[in-house]
C-alpha cells in the first residue's frame, strides 16, 4: 500500500482530476467541432422553423397589433353585459387607422375565422368609419344591426387575445369561448378528430400490413447465404431507386376501375364489368400504396436484427423437444422483437405524417391529417391552425414513442 494522502498528482505535480478534465475537454471539444456544421444546419433548417411554426399555433398578435384600442376595450368587457359606447368608440377609431394602413382586410379575415360572416361587416363598416360621429354605438348600429350583437363582440374578444389556446383546441374539435370556457365544436365543425383517428387507423393498419408481409421476407433473407440475400436485398431496396411519385402513380394505373387489376378480375369472372371494385381514390387505395412504399422500412430493421440471431438457438430448442412452431414462438420470435419494434415505430411515424400518397390516391375519404395541414397552409392560409394541427400530430407521435419506450424500451431498438 502506498501512503498517499490528499489528491493524487501526476508526474508534473498537477492534480490527476484536473489533468483528466483537461484531457477530456480536448476530446469533447474535438467531437463538438466535428459535429458543429451539422448541428448548425439542423438548428437553422430544422429546429428553428419547427419552433416558429409551432409558436404560431398558440400566438396570434394580428388583431392586437392592428386594433390596439379595441383590444384594450374588450379586455374589460365581461361578454354578457351590453355593448358600451367606449368599445364602439375604440373600434371606430381603430378602423379609421386600419383602413388608412390597408390592414383592415387582415383583421377582417382573422375575426371571420371565429365567426363566419363577419368579414364583410368589418370591411364595409371600415369604409364608413371616417365619417362616423359620436355617439359611435348608434352610428355603428345604424350601419349594421350586427354591431349590437354580443356574438360579434365575443368573436372580437377571442380574436384580440395574443396568446390563445383557440387553434390548439380547434385542432381537437373543441371551441374556446369568449368567457374563457371550452365547449365542443358544433356537430358540423367536428372534422379534425375524425381525421386524426382515421390517420392513426391508416397508420396502424399499414404498420401491421408491412409487419405481416415483411417478417417472412426478412426471415428468408436472414437465413439465405450472403450472396443470395444481398441480391434479394437489392430487390427490396429497388423501390427506393424509383421516384415516390412514379410508384404512387403506377398504383393508380393498376388499381383504377379501368386498371390492370380490375380488368383481370373481370377476365377471371371474380366480378362483372358493371361492378368493378373501387380500389383507388379511397382509403383502400391509400392502404395499398402506403403499405408498398413503406415495406422496406419494416424489412430492413427486421433483417438486421434477424441476421444476428444464431440458428443454434432454434436448433437448441428443437433438440430439447420443442416443435418447430413452439421453437419459433418461444425462442426465435422474442429475439426478433427489437427489430419489430424498430420497424413498426419507423413505419408508423412515417405513415402518420404521410402526405403525397393520400393526396394522389386518397380521394375524398382517404385524406390524412397532413393533407389537412397542407390545405390550411396553401389554400385557406390559416397557418395558425396548420401549426396547431402539426403540434397535435407531434404530440401523438411523442405519445407513441413514449408508449414504445414503456412497452419495449427504446434502448432495445435496433435500426441496423
Amino acid at each position: 500500500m502506498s501512503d498517499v494522502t490528499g489528491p493524487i498528482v501526476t508526474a508534473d505535480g498537477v492534480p490527476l482530476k484536473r489533468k483528466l478534465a483537461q484531457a477530456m475537454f480536448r476530446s469533447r471539444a474535438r467531437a463538438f467541432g466535428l459535429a458543429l456544421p451539422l448541428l448548425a444546419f439542423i438548428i437553422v433548417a430544422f429546429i428553428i422553423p419547427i419552433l416558429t411554426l409551432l409558436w404560431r399555433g398558440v400566438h396570434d398578435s394580428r388583431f392586437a397589433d392592428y386594433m390596439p384600442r379595441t383590444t384594450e376595450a374588450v379586455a374589460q368587457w365581461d361578454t354578457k353585459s351590453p355593448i358600451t359606447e367606449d368599445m364602439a368608440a375604440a373600434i371606430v377609431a381603430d378602423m379609421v387607422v386600419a383602413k388608412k394602413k390597408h390592414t383592415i382586410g387582415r383583421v377582417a379575415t382573422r375575426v371571420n375565422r371565429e365567426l363566419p360572416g363577419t368579414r364583410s361587416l368589418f370591411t364595409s363598416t371600415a369604409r364608413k368609419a371616417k365619417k362616423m360621429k359620436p355617439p359611435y354605438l348608434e352610428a355603428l348600429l345604424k350601419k349594421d344591426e350586427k354591431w349590437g350583437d354580443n356574438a360579434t363582440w365575443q368573436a372580437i374578444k377571442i380574436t384580440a387575445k395574443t396568446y390563445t389556446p383557440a387553434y390548439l383546441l380547434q385542432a381537437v374539435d373543441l371551441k374556446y369561448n369568449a368567457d374563457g370556457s371550452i365547449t365542443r365544436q358544433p356537430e358540423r365543425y367536428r372534422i379534425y378528430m375524425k381525421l386524426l383517428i382515421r390517420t392513426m387507423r391508416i397508420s396502424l393498419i399499414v404498420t401491421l400490413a408491412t409487419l405481416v408481409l415483411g417478417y417472412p421476407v426478412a426471415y428468408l433473407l436472414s437465413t439465405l447465404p450472403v450472396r443470395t440475400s444481398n441480391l434479394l436485398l437489392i430487390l427490396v431496396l429497388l423501390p427506393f431507386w424509383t421516384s415516390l411519385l412514379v410508384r404512387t402513380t403506377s398504383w393508380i394505373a393498376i388499381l383504377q376501375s379501368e386498371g390492370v387489376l380490375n380488368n383481370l378480375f373481370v377476365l377471371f369472372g371474380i366480378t362483372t364489368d358493371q361492378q368493378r371494385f373501387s380500389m383507388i381514390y379511397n382509403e383502400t387505395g391509400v392502404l395499398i400504396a402506403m403499405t408498398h412504399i413503406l415495406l422496406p422500412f419494416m424489412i430492413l430493421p427486421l433483417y438486421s436484427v434477424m441476421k444476428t440471431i444464431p440458428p443454434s438457438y432454434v436448433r437448441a430448442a428443437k433438440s430439447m423437444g420443442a416443435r418447430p412452431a413452439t421453437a419459433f414462438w418461444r425462442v426465435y420470435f422474442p429475439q426478433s422483437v427489437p427489430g419489430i419494434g424498430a420497424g413498426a415505430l419507423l413505419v408508423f411515424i412515417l405513415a402518420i405524417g404521410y402526405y403525397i400518397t393520400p393526396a394522389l390516391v386518397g380521394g375524398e375519404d382517404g385524406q390524412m391529417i397532413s393533407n389537412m395541414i397542407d390545405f390550411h397552409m396553401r389554400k385557406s392560409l390559416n397557418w395558425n391552425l396548420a401549426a396547431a394541427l402539426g403540434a397535435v400530430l407531434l404530440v401523438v407521435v411523442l405519445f407513441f414513442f413514449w408508449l414504445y419506450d414503456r412497452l419495449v424500451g427504446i434502448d432495445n431498438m435496433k435500426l441496423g
Partner: protein
Amino acid sequence: MSTVSKEDGFVVFDHVQKSYDGETLVVKDLNLAIGKGEFLTMLGPSGSGKTTCLMMLAGFETATHGDILLGGKPINNIPPHKRGIGMVFQNYALFPHMTVGENLSFPLEVRKMGKAEREEKVRNALDMVQMGDFINRRPAQLSGGQQQRIALARSLVFEPDLVLMDEPLGALDKQLREHMQYEIKHLHDQLGVTVVYVTHDQSEALTMSDRVAVFDDGVIQQLATPDDLYERPENAFVAQFIGENNRLVGVVKDISGDVATVEVDGGGVVTAKAVNCGGAGGRTTLSIRPERVKVGADGGPNRTDAEVLELIYLGDHIRCRMRVLGNEEFIVKIPNAADNKRLVVGEKTTVGWETEDCRALDAS
C-alpha cells in the same frame, strides 16, 4: 468397450455419407457403433466433418447416403424434436431472453410436465452443476464457465439417453477447461448417459473418453481407447495427431514376423514393429514417442548416433532436440532425475529404442 458391433450399438452410423454441395463428400462412408453409456469422442482437425456428423445425428442435417440408427431404429425420417437427444452447442445457445431457470424449464415445459415436477427437476439439475444460486440470472450475467455449466444442465435436465456436445469447452481458458472436463466426466459416470463429444483438443479427448474416433478428411482414421490410440497408432496421421511423435521415413527392406527392417532415408538401418507398412520394398513412416527414446550407452537394440541441437528446460523433464538419422527435429524427453547425465548443446552421443516402441506405419 472397444468392440461394439453394429447389432448391439446404441447409436450406429451405417455407411453414412454427406455432401453439402453435391461435388465433394464431407463425410465419406462413416461406420461407427456407439455402445449404451459410452463416452465417445470425435477428434480431428478443423473441417474434418465432426460437426457434420453430430448435426446428422441430431437431425439438423440429412445424410446424403446411408442410415443412422438410434436404439436399433433408423432415425433418418424422425424430425429433431422427436429424437430426444440432448445437445450442448459450442456457443452454448442459452436463450438470452429467459432466466437460467426458464432455460432449464423449457425442455420440460414442451414435454407438458407439471409445474411442481418441473421446478424440482430444474433445481436438481442446477445443483448437479453447482449453480443452484443462479436460477434467476440471465445468461448474459454469467461468466463463460457458468454459462457452460448451465448449457450442460439444460441438455441433461430432460434425462435424454444420448447427449451430444460440440466443442463445449472451446471458449474456456485452460484451467477452467480442465476443471470442466473433470466435471463432465464425473456427470457421465454418475448418470450413465451416452455421450458423443466433439473436440479438436487431443488431450481433452484422451482424458475424458472411453473411445476416441480420430477423424480426418471425412474418414475415421482410427477408433480406439485412449491408451491404444497413443501407444498403438495404426497409421501415420494418428501417430502424428495424437501426442508428440518422432517421424523417420524410409524403405522396408525385410519383414520377418512382425519385425520390419527399415532403411531410413537419412542413412542407417533400424528394426521396427510392422503395423501398417506393407511388404518389403514399400515406403514407410516410423513413429517413435519421445519418451521411449533412451540416451547414452544403455540404448537398446536400435543404437544410432545423435547430436544435441537444442535443450529446453521444463522442470520435471528436459526436451532435447537432436539430429538423428538425418532428422533434425528428433525430440527426446529426458526425465530430470538425479542420476541423469546433463547434456550440452553440440554434444555427440547415441540414442536407441526398443523394436516394439518404433512402429512402422503407412507412408503418408
